[in-house]
Structure formats: C-alpha cells, structure tokens
C-alpha cells in the first residue's frame, strides 16, 4: 500500500518537473517581452538595462534553475506588466475562479442527477429521450457559444441580468465571495450556468448509466419485494449506489472546470485567473503565464493523485495490477 502511494507520488512529482521544463522552455520561445515593455524612444543602453534587470540576458537553463529555486520558495517572478509578484496576482484571483467553478459544479449536480435518474428510470419515454438528446447539445456546444447566447438573451434582449463583470463581494473569513448579495448573484448566474452546462450533460449521462446498471440488481428487487414505496427505493437505494461514480468524476472534473473557466471568464469579463491568463498571453507577460500554468498543472496532478490513491484504498485490484506491470 505504502509502496504504491510512494510510487504514485514520485510519478506525480516527475510529471510536474517535466511539465515545468516544457512550459518554461516553451514560453521562453515566445518573442522577447522587452520589445513590448520598452517605448521606441529608449536608447540601446536603457534597453540593455531593462533586459538585465529582468534577468533575460542569462542563458535559458540558468534562468530555468533560478526560476525553480525561486518557485520552491513561493516566488514565480514579477509580472512584467503589473510589476507585482506573479503568484500574488494569481492568488488574488483564485476566490473569483473557485467561486465560479464550485457554483457550476453544484448546479450541474443539482440539475444533472434528477434529470439523469429520470432518463434512466424511463429510458423510452419522450422525456427521457429528450433529456438524452439535450445532453448531446450540452456536450457538444462550445462553452463560449453558450455564454454568448445567454448574454444575447438575458442581457441584451430582455435586460434582466448584467452581461459582464463580478458584482459586489462580501468578505467571509477573509475570502471575497459574491453569491451573498443579490447584485453579486445576478452577475454570477450567467457565467455559472455557462460553465455548468457541459458538466451537467456529463452528470446526466453518468446518472442514467448508473440507474440502468443498478435497477436490475437483486437488492433493488428485494427492496421492492419488501413493499417499500417506489419513491424510497429510488431516492435511497438507487441514488446512493449511483453516487460513487458521479462523485469520483466530479472530483476529477474540478480541474477541467477551472481550465474551462478561462473561456467563460473571458466571455463574461469575470475577474478570475483565467481572464488573467488570456490577458497575460496577449501581453506576453511571461511570469504570469508560467505561474498560472504551473499552478494549474499542480492542481490537476494533485487531483489525479488523490483520486488514484483513494481508488487504490477502495479497490485493491488497482494497486495489485500496477505492481505486476
């Protein structure tokens, strides 16, 4: 058991190292940031001074090791544009993105599970079929397109909801959240629905497949034979048993929701990490891009690690198979 966990942690560390090299070297190949930071009237000497001050005159591997050394101390360099610590810029925006991501996941579960269960219980009904057809739409329509249509309808045509930005925030235990005020909620709802849509489709499919699998089981027949009301069989016996895959996949999908928040935040001008990333790519603000990518790589790897380890605890076959290979 311990051997398996140690091996998985080493593997995760290896992936993080490889990704850091790829990201750093890759981003380094993008044009020199000095070009956009200086104004054309600067003299050669001034330009050199700027280059030197940013440490860009050193060879790339030296820059990489300086970067790793600093990164381990929680310093990923200063933003070329804002002049602040890149990590600080990102950390400041984490609450906005996480709020959006978590609300979206809640929406997708609250809407997806009942719809999926209905489709699983009545697979041939008109409702069940429409839900499944709808889930194809949810899967396939691009995130930004959905956001655009929602803005088009709710902000431009009927004017009920704001099209952009984050509403006023309330400080809860040092974290700014916006869902506690009406104005904040109004700003939150469209981006959250946009981000939730594809995950809702996923939850619908998982719930439906789960119900179809669980229904023919003996314990369901037994519960029915005991004379339990249908409502109780569905809401206790079926629901409990389909939750395992749904919870696992939802946990794994958190990383992908944060990644897709890049698109949603850009559409709705939501001041989170994703919008910062897109702005920074546009500005060639290298430290911020590298810091964001490293942070999300870290998040994804850790999420995968946690899920894998939990799985190996729950299902010993996983780690035994691994040891054999």
């Amino acid at each position: 058991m311990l051997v398996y966990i140690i091996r998985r942690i080493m593997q995760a560390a290896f992936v993080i190292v490889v990704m850091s090299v790829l990201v750093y070297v890759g981003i380094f190949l993008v044009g020199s940031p000095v070009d956009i930071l200086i104004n054309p009237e600067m003299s050669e000497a001034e330009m050199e001074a700027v280059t030197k001050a940013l440490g860009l005159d050193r060879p790339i591997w030296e820059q990489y090791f300086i970067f790793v050394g600093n990164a381990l101390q929680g310093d990923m360099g200063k933003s070329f544009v804002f002049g602040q610590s890149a990590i600080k810029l990102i950390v400041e925006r984490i609450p906005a993105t996480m709020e959006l991501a978590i609300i979206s996941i809640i929406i997708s579960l609250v809407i997806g599970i009942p719809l999926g269960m209905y489709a699983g219980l009545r697979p041939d009904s008109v409702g069940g079929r429409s839900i499944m057809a709808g889930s194809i739409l949810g899967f396939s329509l691009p995130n930004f397109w959905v956001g655009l249509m929602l803005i088009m309808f709710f902000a431009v045509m009927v004017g009920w909801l704001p099209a952009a930005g984050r509403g006023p925030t309330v400080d809860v235990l040092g974290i700014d959240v916006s869902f506690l005020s009406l104005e904040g909620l109004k700003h939150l709802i469209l981006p959250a629905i946009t981000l939730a849509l594809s995950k809702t489709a996923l939850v619908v499919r998982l719930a439906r497949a789960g119900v179809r699998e669980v229904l023919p089981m003996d314990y369901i027949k037994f519960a029915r034979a005991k004379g339990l009301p249908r409502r109780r069989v569905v809401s206790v016996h079926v629901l409990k048993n389909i939750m395992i895959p749904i919870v696992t996949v939802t946990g794994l999908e958190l990383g992908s929701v944060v990644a897709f928040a890049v698109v949603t935040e850009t559409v709705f001008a939501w001041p989170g990490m994703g919008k910062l990333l897109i702005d920074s790519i546009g500005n060639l603000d290298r430290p911020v891009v590298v810091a964001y990518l490293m942070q999300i790589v870290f998040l994804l790897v850790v999420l995968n690690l946690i899920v894998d380890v939990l799985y190996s605890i729950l299902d010993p076959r996983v780690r035994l198979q691994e040891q054999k290979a």
Partner: protein
Amino acid sequence: MTDTALQSQGAETGQGGSLLRRFAAEFAESKLALVGLVGFAIIVFIALFAPFVAPQDPYDLASLDIFDVRLPPGSVGQETGITYWLGTDAQGRDMLSAIMYGLRVSLFVGAVSAVVSLIIGAAVGLTAAYFGGRVDSIIMRIVDIQLSFPAILVALILLSILGQGVDKVLIALVIVQWAYYARTARGSALVERNREYVEAATCLGLGHGRIMFRHIMPNCMPPLIVIVTIQVADAIALEATLSFLGVGVPVTEPSLGLLISTGFDYLLSGKYWISVFPGVALALAIVSINLVGDQLRDVLNPRLKR
C-alpha cells in the same frame, strides 16, 4: 457461441452488399440521425463550393463597400446591389458569404486534424497493443498523463507558444487529440491480437508491420470511425474557442469562431447579427456531426445489436 449467433454472423459476412444495406437501414432508424446526416451533407456542400454559392467573395477587398458597414439583415447594398440576407459586418462584408467561407476554414481544420491524429494515434495504439510489455506501459503512461490535462488548456499553452496560424492550430489540435485515438485503437487491438487469424498470420512468417496494419487494423476500425466523427465536431468547437480567445486562426482567414469573436464587440450595442449568425452556423455544424456520430456508435456497437 450459440447456433443463432453463428447464423447471424454467417448472414453478416455472407454478402457485402446486404451488409451495407443493413447498416444503412439501421442508421436510418433514428429520424434525428437522418436530420443530422442531411444537415452535415448541406454543410459539407457549402464548405466545398463556397466560392460558387456565396453571393460575395469576402476576401476580395475590392468587392466590399465601406458604406455598407454593419447593415442589419435584409438590407440591400447601395453600390454592390447585393441583398445582405444576414446583414454585414464591421468591414462591410456580407455575413452570409463570410459564414460560408468561415465554415470552410472550420471544417478544413476539423477534418484534417481528425485524420492526422487518427493516423498517428492508431499507429501508436496498435504498436502498444501488439508489442505489449514495456512498450505498452510507457506509451499508455504518456497517453494517461496527456488525457489528465484538459484539451483546451493544452491547446492554449501550445498556441501561446506557437503563435497564430491555421497550420499552428492544426499542430495543436493533433497534439491534443492523438491520445484519444491511441487509447481506443489499443483497446480494440488488444482483443484482436489474441484472435486465431493473428496467430495464423504469425505462423506464416509475416512481418510485424504487415500483421499490425493489414490484419489487425481493419478489424479495429469501427470504434475508431465513431471517435473520428465525434472528434471532428470537438476539433471544430475547440478551434472556434481558441479563435474566439484570440490565439487561433489569423484575421485573414476567419473561421466561424473568429467571426463570432469580432462580432462579440457589437453584440451589446444590439447589432446581434455579426455574432449570432456565425454562432448558429457553428452550432448547426457541431450538432449535426454529433447526431451522426451518436447513431454511428449505436449501430457499430456489437453489444447493442438486437
């Protein structure tokens, strides 16, 4: 295998013509899939023949009239005399023509990236399954790691490194997508590799390459075909997203995503047509391909055979 199963298998392999007809009949069972197929055919037709069916050449600056900028749908150009059924954009381009040409770029990117990643992914997946052992575990580890990162993120990193351009978008999409094909190809090749016909081919002394690509691969195609249709739609959506974010195709060759992106600036001022109509075209393309893919999966899946 039971007698009836043997019989039905005999019927399937008996005549090539009836197999195809049966396939068509099964596909046509879903009305929705037929609608998707028709939609897909229309879209491919428009994309292929855009220069002949479009009222205007949106790339030809001489044919544009600066007085026709941002006209609502149904207006008639003063100098050009063209009726702009879907309005015009900020450069005075006819939206209908721009959408037809944009569809071309989008479909081209989707189809080419899907085919290239199919070839790479199938070859890698087959190699992994055929040789097994160390080769297999190394390849599949790489695939697993790649698939644990969201496609949009990988593509975004790659394009921020590579820069803009249709060719660069293609490279990014292939790098993002090959792993799906590799996993699928490996899965079905693992089953096939233990079949007797592979053993027979090995006994005949045929080379590894020949057995892999001439004997095993044709039998792995059905699931791969399903993945291709779904991945084409995914690639189109991903390309549109990247172009929307400003890291995709260049302004000179606007895809649907880029058209939506440029129109987005005018959406809030009520000039909806610049953004919404390319959006509708994009949605129709993606949904019709997905409907076809969904039905193909049901028809080609032997587990669901009635």
